């Protein structure tokens, strides 16, 4: 692209001619405020509807103000980003937006993470200048995962872009017109009735509190304070790599020990680790994979740890329900084992056990409510809290997180290998499965358990791995748009892969819909830092392969019997349901 010369606020600069004014301003560190504009993952996903007009700037020789987000630069352009006319227009635009906004920031879940609030504060504008009509929508709470309060919606349609362009889930669309226009599902259906997978990417990009994760904090406090209940908590691998951010710590620091102590201080009776169950998942999944390889089973095999991904294929690829592994996700396996094996061992009535999962995810909330995930005779998992909710609970309880001493997980359900840690990152489940499969198939110890070729942050990756002279083709997708492409290949019979790992969220669970909020432009950097923290956790473990976890070996010996055997099938595997498209 040829370069053009422009002047922004008196700063002369050269930029590529396909830049927008916003791009050019950012290049010289001039901050033009935006609201509807969204750029994700090096502009792989962009919302450029230019509907809010907050980014207007003055261009010399042009009659009207120009939206910086969608106006291309031209040679010789002279731009003023904060002239009196610009400032006045922005204030009016903000006042108009606020004239139909609840302004109950004190009660709002998004307070402190709200772009509208931040901008309004920065502008120091009279939010009550215009009186006018107010939207009056019911707050939509049909699902276990996401709450929609359209009274707070500013119609920026970022959620629609995340849902349709990035995830290709296609639940959200602009519905109606004019003042009554909303962003929502077809026929104004409640989310629960749609093909929404509850990945929560819409919640992450919502600039206000219109889309929120559903909170289960109250239920968990009640369980903790119920003397009749034994409350067991488990923590997903990705939580430890991000929880510190809730307390102002830099991204990329694992806070495993402090998290354990914090959970004890909250009053959980037993602090266990989903990582233990991740090792269990690998033993089951790798055994299933080897079984399919050796017995001419359905290939490729797709991983099934991600509930959003599972719901995605149940709606969109109903003809391929036999392709994914039948393994339950780790926290569900954990619930089933806790309410059977551990309950027996501890002589506790499983009806009294409350299993709480701390997850980087909103979809896990929905997953826990799936009726069939109750092979223990009880719902396997009772409540799911997001990383953000745990942060809130700790703050509410006045726990000074940064100064907490490190604690250790309880055993036997708290010990894990490095293979479990990497479940948090895209490519990790695949790598952990390869660590085990390679050793089992070849009958030899691996020299190095690091499968660098499957790591990375790109949405779609593939690699060839040699196991005992056999070429194994693996593919990894994070983000459902990328997953769709792999699935379409499988459907067309053109897939040459043996194993495919899919995670619904870009980067995997470390950037899940329940993780601490991050400025969307910084997400890639934060993703890399969180991933580094996870790989460091893995590298620091004495045992790096799931099948070598002694507590897992004990679990099979004492209770489950054979891996992928009858009892394991009953407790640790599940089936899939064809679901309607809406």
């Amino acid at each position, binding site marked *: 692209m040829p370069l053009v010369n422009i002047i922004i606020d008196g700063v002369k600069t050269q930029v590529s001619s396909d830049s927008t004014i916003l791009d050019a301003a950012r290049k010289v560190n001039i901050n033009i405020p935006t609201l509807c504009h969204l750029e994700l993952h090096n502009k792989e996903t962009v919302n450029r509807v230019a509907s809010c007009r907050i980014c207007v700037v003055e261009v010399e020789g042009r009659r009207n103000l120009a939206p910086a987000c969608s106006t291309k630069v031209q040679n010789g352009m002279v731009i003023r980003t904060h002239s009196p006319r610009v400032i006045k227009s922005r204030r009016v635009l903000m006042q108009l937006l606020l004239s139909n906004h609840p302004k109950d920031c004190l009660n709002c879940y998004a307070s402190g993470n709200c772009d509208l609030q931040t901008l309004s504060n920065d502008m120091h504008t009279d939010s009550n200048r215009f009186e006018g009509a107010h939207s009056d929508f019911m707050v939509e709470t049909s699902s276990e995962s996401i709450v929609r309060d359209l009274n707070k919606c500013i119609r920026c349609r970022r959620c629609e872009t995340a849902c*349709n362009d990035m995830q290709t889930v*296609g*639940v*959200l*669309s*602009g*519905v*109606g*017109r004019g003042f009554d226009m909303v962003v*929502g*599902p*077809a*026929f104004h259906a409640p989310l629960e009735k*749609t093909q929404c997978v509850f990945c929560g990417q819409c919640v992450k990009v919502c600039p206000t509190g219109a889309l929120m994760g559903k909170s289960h904090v109250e239920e968990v406090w009640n369980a903790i304070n119920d003397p009749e209940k034994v409350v067991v908590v488990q923590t997903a691998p990705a939580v430890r790599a991000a929880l510190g951010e809730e307390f102002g710590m830099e991204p990329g620091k694992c806070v495993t020990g402090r998290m354990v102590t914090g959970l004890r201080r909250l009053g959980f009776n037993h602090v266990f680790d989903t990582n233990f169950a991740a090792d269990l998942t690998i033993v089951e999944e790798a055994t299933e994979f080897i079984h399919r390889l050796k017995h001419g089973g359905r290939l490729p095999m797709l991983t099934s740890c991600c509930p959003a991904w599972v719901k995605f294929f149940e709606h969109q690829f109903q003809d391929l329900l036999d392709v994914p592994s039948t393994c339950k996700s780790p926290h569900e396996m954990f619930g089933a084992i806790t309410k059977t094996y551990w309950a027996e061992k501890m002589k506790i009535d499983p009806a009294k056990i409350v299993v709480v999962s701390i997850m980087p995810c909103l979809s896990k909330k929905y997953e826990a409510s799936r009726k069939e995930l109750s092979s223990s005779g009880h719902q396997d998992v009772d409540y799911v809290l997001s990383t953000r909710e745990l942060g809130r609970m700790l703050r509410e309880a006045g726990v000074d997180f940064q100064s907490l001493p490190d604690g250790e997980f309880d055993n036997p359900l708290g010990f894990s290998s490095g293979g479990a840690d990497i479940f948090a990152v895209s490519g990790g489940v695949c790598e952990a499965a390869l660590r085990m499969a390679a050793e089992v198939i070849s009958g030899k110890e691996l020299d190095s358990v690091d499968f660098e070729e499957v790591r990375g942050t790109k949405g779609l990756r593939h690699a060839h791995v040699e196991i005992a002279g056999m070429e194994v083709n693996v593919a990894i997708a994070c983000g459902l748009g990328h997953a769709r492409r792999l699935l379409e290949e499988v459907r067309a019979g053109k897939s040459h892969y043996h194993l495919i790992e899919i995670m619904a969220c870009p980067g995997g669970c470390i950037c899940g819909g329940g993780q601490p909020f991050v400025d969307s432009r910084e997400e890639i950097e934060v993703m890399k830092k969180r991933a580094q923290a996870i790989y460091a956790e893995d590298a620091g473990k004495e045992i790096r392969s799931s099948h070598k976890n002694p507590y897992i070996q004990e679990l099979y010996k004492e209770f489950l019997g054979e891996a992928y055997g009858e009892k394991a099938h009953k407790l640790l595997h599940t089936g899939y349901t064809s679901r309607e*498209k*809406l």
Partner: protein
Amino acid sequence: MGGAGGAIETMELTRMQTEETSDQAKIRELDAFIQSLGLDGRDAAGRRAVLIQILHRAQGLFGWLPEEVQKHISAKLDLHVSEVYGVVSFYHFFKTKPSGRHVIDFCTGTACFVRGIGKVIEQVEAQTGTKLGETSGDGRFTLGSLRCVGACSLAPVLQVDGKTYGRVTPEQVEAILAEYK
């Protein structure tokens, strides 16, 4: 989306021709129409481009756009249902509820507005017990509005089932309604 007027005429004709046929037959006819558009190999943008045309035809066949029909069209075009509904709900022309036996459309264009269509609407609403945009409880009338039928010299104007009445006064409403059972 060329020829919207043409599509409306076709719709009127089709409505009469197919009044007696079953829903399956209508779906078959709709499918044949979609087939005739030659969508094979088109990308999403190409399929999106014919959505309004197909919705026009579907409404012509069914009189309105039931959810099942919208879902059917979305499957045929491999577009998300939310997108189809987004378009349907954007245009007042598309109806998501079945119409009554007779459709009364009031012209709310400038001339008719100035010449008092408002009073006529009030009178019709009172006599049918129905609000603008709704269908009477007995299924006899649906009240709708349109913008200018090009007969401003006759303002205020209303149409019943496509038949135009000009210089309508509130006093004439009773007699007009009596023509339609």
